[in-house]
């Protein structure tokens, strides 16, 4: 190996320092949130909590897990993610398989209709009025039905299906298998990695979405955890502004409880992030591949 010149060594050291700094700034907010959520709220209010909890407690999580509204919203999120991901992946994959067939009549017409929607849409207000007209307001199905078909995912699926060897299907056809049979018995089992990747991205979308429920759902029983969390954080900001006006009274109130809104919202945030952190290490290899599949077709 060639020896590095002095200039190159300086550059390498700088790069390592910058990257370590980036890793730290990315990781620190997570760590700090976990630390505050594990620290007694009253103690946190006295300040100085950064890297380690000072007065360790599970109290905050106890309050979160006993709050029936939060627990309910957590289950709504899970239900939405599971049903929404499964339904969308199935519908989109079947759609893509159909459109990948060269003999399909109107193939080009269908494709053009799909591609237009990638560049142009009716926007927020007409969609909002449509959803209202369809009676999907305050219905669980508003999470599922409008996002059943993803044109983006369809194109990635289609590219994958077009790359499968034609011989596989020929032999199945000889055995008297129809298109649906071929799809479910041969094509789908061969599509493991693509399905995993796209399911991951779809699931992340469903888990993270807070905006749709905030405009379509007023029934608190149907709110997912992200939207719930947004409301909690907003009320935090409000109380912070209030505390600036009347810090004495606010201080009195805080002293009466050992669990504060801050420690509570940190615990909720950790709970809402946990599912993603938990699956993240297992799917990392898939999403790197997935992004590449996506961008190659872009």
């Amino acid at each position: 190996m060639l020896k590095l010149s002095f200039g190159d060594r300086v550059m390498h050291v700088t790069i390592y320092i910058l990257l370590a700094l980036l890793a730290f700034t990315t990781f620190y907010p997570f760590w700090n949130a976990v630390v505050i959520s594990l620290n007694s709220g009253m103690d946190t209010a006295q300040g100085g909590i950064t890297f380690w909890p000072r007065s360790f407690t599970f109290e905050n999580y106890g309050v979160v897990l006993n709050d029936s509204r939060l627990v309910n919203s957590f289950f709504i999120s899970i239900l939405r993610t599971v049903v929404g991901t499964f339904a969308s992946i199935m519908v989109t994959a079947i759609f893509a398989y159909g459109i990948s067939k060269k003999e399909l009549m109107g193939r080009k017409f269908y494709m053009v209709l799909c591609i237009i929607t990638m560049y142009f849409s009716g926007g927020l207000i007409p969609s909002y009025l449509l959803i209202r007209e369809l009676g999907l307001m305050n219905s669980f199905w508003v999470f599922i039905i409008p996002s059943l078909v993803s044109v983006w995912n369809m194109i990635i699926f289609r590219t994958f299906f077009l790359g499968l060897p034609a011989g596989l299907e020929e032999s199945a056809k000889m055995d008297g298998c129809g298109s649906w049979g071929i799809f479910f018995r041969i094509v789908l089992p061969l599509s493991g990695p693509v399905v995993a990747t796209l399911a991951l991205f779809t699931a992340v979308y469903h888990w993270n979405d807070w905006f749709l429920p905030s405009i379509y759902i007023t029934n608190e029983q149907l709110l997912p955890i992200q939207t719930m969390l947004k409301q909690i954080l907003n009320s935090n900001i409000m109380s912070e502004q209030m505390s600036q006006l009347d810090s004495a009274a606010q201080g009195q109130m805080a002293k009466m409880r050992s669990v504060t809104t801050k420690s509570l919202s940190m615990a909720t945030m950790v709970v809402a992030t946990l599912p993603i952190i938990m699956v993240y290490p297992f799917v990392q290899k898939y999403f790197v591949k997935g992004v590449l599949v996506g961008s190659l077709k872009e």
Partner: protein
Amino acid sequence: MVQLPLGKEGKQLPVRPGKHPDRSGRNGLVRFVKQLDIQLMVLPAMLLILVFSYIPMYGLIMGFQDYDIFLGGFRGFFESPWVGLKHFEMFFDSPEFVRVMRNTIVISLLKLFIGFPAPILLALMLNEVRHMVFKRFVQTISYLPHFLSWVIVAGFVMSMLTTDNGSVNIMMQKLNLIEEPINFLSIPEYFWGILVTTGVWKEIGFGSIVYLAAIASIDPHLYEAASMDGASKFKQMFLITLPSIMPVVIIFMILAIGNLLSAGFEDILLLGVNPVLRDVSDVIDTYVYRVGIQNSRYSYATAVGLFKAVISVGLLTMANYIARRSGNSLW
């Protein structure tokens, strides 16, 4: 290497000369029935696209109407009275117009000039790292924020910046940079900086994946030849790596320019909660949301949204036209 499906379809189109006698009339119908199984795979999905994408597109005409709420969704689209360009003129004449346009363009340009090169820079730096464990460690951590919802990210930002013992205030006080904690999220001067920094924090790692892949496909002989000629690593970065990934950079640049009027939505909605910030936080998308959903001025908000959509398509087409002359384009 990078190609849009539209381009692909476009290239397939001309290679079909001649007539298709079997496509017309009765024969077409027979063929359709024969392939009913695959048509049934496509038609339900197309119906969903028609309903959830094309009906709202048709609904855009309400930007030229005074939408009548009492007629309801579909009838409202068809039967509301026409008013021509009234809502567009109202928007252009409104006191918010200048503010909204200024914020949209400034925030977009800040995101373009800082948020766009950041992942490229990260990819270039990661490429120089020889310790694989360290590289994977940085990558794993930096990808993670992309998968968090904006609510969580906004929660992090608030918790870092709060006057109530936020870590940033603690650090700045320890370093004697400030005397009293600063309430960053209620001071308009800081808002754009916070917004851009947060955006970079969330997307820098994930955005670098594509560029790392492009770097990985560069022929290693180029580097060998360059070192033989005595080019330093630093020079190689600028003379080999950067030019080699330029096609990918240009494609993403075109897409970014097409999104110039989408300055942000979720991030601004969540971080700009404080009404004090409205002067610097109001962009087209949040304005449409506030006026349309919260104040129920449907026709007016639709007109504003349509104005944005039309300019965006124009910008995208223009950027693509310019890029095509350099040989890298979307279509």
